[in-house]
């Protein structure tokens, strides 16, 4: 057992760090650090910088553009990006659609979509949740009826993150409503967002931001060649994807950066004439979050090590990383707001006028991050998964 990085790993980390220092545009870094909304151009801009460097899809097979890095190197890269405050890469294409195509797609589908995902030419979103199907995803109703060489899709998706930017959506649809086991009637379809009959309507969240949408499908014609895997096997695809989705939700590097910022904040704000960080009540809460984060980092590395040695894809244990990672992210936003105290009140930064915009974003950030324990399978669903798959309850 050796928890220190090897000389080679340290050299790799230094390479990544210095490259990020030289190539992450200052305005993007500043936006990420101060929790500003990122435009489509911001997101794609960073995607393309990484694509040009060859680092946009480290976990893909090398022949499709992967870097061939070890599990540890990939982790180091992730952490350095989070710590450097790069925009998060939008996962829907790179980390969700792509692994699905690589595992279940035809050669034609791979050739058609993977290079465009890699280069940031297609912006993807994910059509899973429906108004009546949240945690109970398998109850979804959006139907796809086969007519000749295409499917006709009718229904509604909700909470579709960044659908307003998207060129494509991958959807779970019901192709056979007669199956006794409802999971068996579900298929996985790729749909061009420009197809007639698709309407995107924004959902404004409580922080005033627009991230997520409703997507309506009204007799949308989808070529049958856009079916992934077999008809009726979409649930298998969805389950495969879930492990990948949760893998990226720990966000340890970013939490480390935010924790460092929180400490600065707590050193700057005063209580009874002393830095807030010297206040035992505040400090102990802060320390417990820091300790959880230290532990999560090791837990994450242990799970990666198990994956590496067993050669198996992420299992139900990954749900733990999602639960802990998101709890920590939320705790940090809460402590940041607490540190700023009465100054953390503004709704929209634009309301803040002359005082500093970072502080003005803390309350909306706190509100926004309540989403973390709800999305990608609520933390209660993650506990169900662990209870069933790991504990056999």
């Amino acid at each position, binding site marked *: 057992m050796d*928890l220190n990085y090897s000389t080679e790993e340290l050299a790799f980390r230094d390479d990544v760090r210095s490259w990020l220092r030289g190539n992450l545009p200052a305005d993007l870094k500043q936006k990420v650090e101060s929790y500003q909304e990122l435009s489509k151009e911001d997101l794609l801009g960073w995607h393309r910088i990484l694509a040009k460097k060859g680092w946009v899809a480290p976990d893909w097979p090398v022949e499709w553009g992967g870097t061939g890095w070890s599990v540890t190197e990939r982790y180091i890269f992730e952490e350095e990006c989070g710590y450097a405050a790069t925009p998060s890469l939008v996962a829907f294409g790179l980390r969700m659609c792509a692994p699905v195509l690589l595992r279940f797609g035809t050669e034609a589908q791979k050739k058609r979509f993977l290079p465009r995902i890699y280069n940031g030419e297609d912006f993807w979103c994910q059509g899973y949740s429906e108004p009546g199907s949240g945690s109970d995803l398998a109850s979804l109703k959006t139907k796809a009826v086969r007519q000749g060489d295409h499917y006709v899709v009718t229904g509604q998706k909700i909470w579709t993150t960044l659908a307003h930017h998207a060129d494509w959506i991958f959807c779970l649809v019901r192709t056979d409503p007669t199956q006794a086991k409802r999971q068996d009637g579900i298929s996985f379809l790729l749909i061009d967002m420009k197809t007639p009959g698709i309407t995107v309507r924004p959902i404004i969240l409580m922080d005033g931001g627009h991230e997520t949408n409703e997507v309506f499908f009204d007799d949308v014609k989808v070529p049958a060649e856009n079916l992934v895997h077999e008809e009726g096997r979409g649930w298998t695809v969805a389950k495969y994807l879930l492990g990948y989705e949760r893998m990226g939700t720990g966000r340890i590097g970013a939490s480390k950066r935010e924790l460092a910022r929180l*400490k600065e904040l707590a050193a700057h704000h005063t209580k009874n004439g002393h830095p807030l960080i010297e206040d035992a009540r505040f400090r102990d809460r802060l320390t417990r979050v820091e300790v959880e984060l230290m532990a*999560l980092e*090791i837990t994450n590395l242990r799970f990666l090590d198990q994956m590496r*040695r067993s050669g198996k894809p992420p299992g139900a244990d990954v749900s733990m990383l999602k639960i802990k990672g998101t709890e920590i992210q939320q705790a940090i936003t809460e402590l940041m707001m607490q540190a700023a105290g009465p100054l953390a009140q503004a709704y929209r930064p634009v309301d803040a006028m002359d005082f500093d915009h970072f502080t003005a974003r803390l309350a909306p950030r706190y509100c926004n991050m309540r989403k973390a324990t709800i999305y990608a399978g609520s933390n*209660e669903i993650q506990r169900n998964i662990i209870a069933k798959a790991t*504990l056999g309850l």
Partner: protein
Amino acid sequence: MNFELSDEQQLLGDSLRKYLANDYSFDARAKIVASPTGWSEKVWASFAEMGLLGLPFAEEHGGFGGTAVDVMLVMEALGESLVVEPYLANVGIAGRLVDRAGSDAQQKQILPALVQGQKRLALAHTEAAARYELRHVGARARRAGDGWVLEGEKRAVLQAGAAETLIVSARTSGSDTDPSGISLFLVDRVARGVTVKEYRTIDELRAADVWLSDVAVGRDALLGGEGQALPVIEEIADYATALLCAEAVGAIRYANDTTLEYLKTRRQFGVPIGSFQALQHRMVEMVISYEQARSMACLACVKADTAGPAERQRVISAAKIKVADACRHVSQEAVQMHGGMGMTDELKVSHTFRRLTMIGQTFGDAEHHLERFAACEAAGG
């Protein structure tokens, strides 16, 4: 970076677990606990035979030169079986002190005998007013002729009854809380002026209060430099804390396994109680506590004998905070989910509860380590 155990480590862990499964059942343990001394010489001899007692000590003393990570594997197994023999007190604390602070002559005299299972020691350091503050020593040692005379009271001395020799901390200079001026002395447990009052602890180990009244010791009783003992005491406390974290991991694993088993077999309302989501989610939280505690125990043991004092203290305090929280969380939930049965002396889970409760506060509770962590942060940043 890798978490792989070497073949030797794997083998050691496996053979110890096999031994404990055969020879240290819960019933066998109960007999040992009820015996007059509260520990088993036979078990101790087996530990010596398996090489456990010499694990971290140098080969010249009959040891294997093992790291804290090697000892971690032993501690996990001991924790799972709630072993009451004075392993930590000797291998993790007193023996380690001799190893780190003792003269060549002292090491030669003590360590080979300890490694062979023929000699046991105990550290008498804690005092009533000190709480967890290691620098707080009120006992005094004054020079007398060629040696010293010791005077003072030590409390809750772990496993003193099993020891032939006590390592006593006493001031050779300074006031009660000065960082300098603390010295260590080797004192025969039955020396004139030494009174040892032994008692059973709630987790079925033995501890003792020790009174020192005009105890005369020779020049060669001084262990380490005069007045210089605090750094080595701090180092050993951290080392032992890391090992204690590993012991907790083993005990938590047992608590989780047995609770999960109970959830699957105990039926109420016609179904296993583990089919209730309220209990499932709480069980999952216990598993997460275990994984997080295990991560911190690994980190603590890796750093215990490789890091400098500043990093070591920060990491080990962090580990103890997490492990103490996990001890409390898991032990309380394990008893609660066992219902009335969890309250009984009959089930091992209540004994695990007691051990985890004591581990939580040994060498500093979470609050103590929250303070120390903050002090490390303030000093470092």
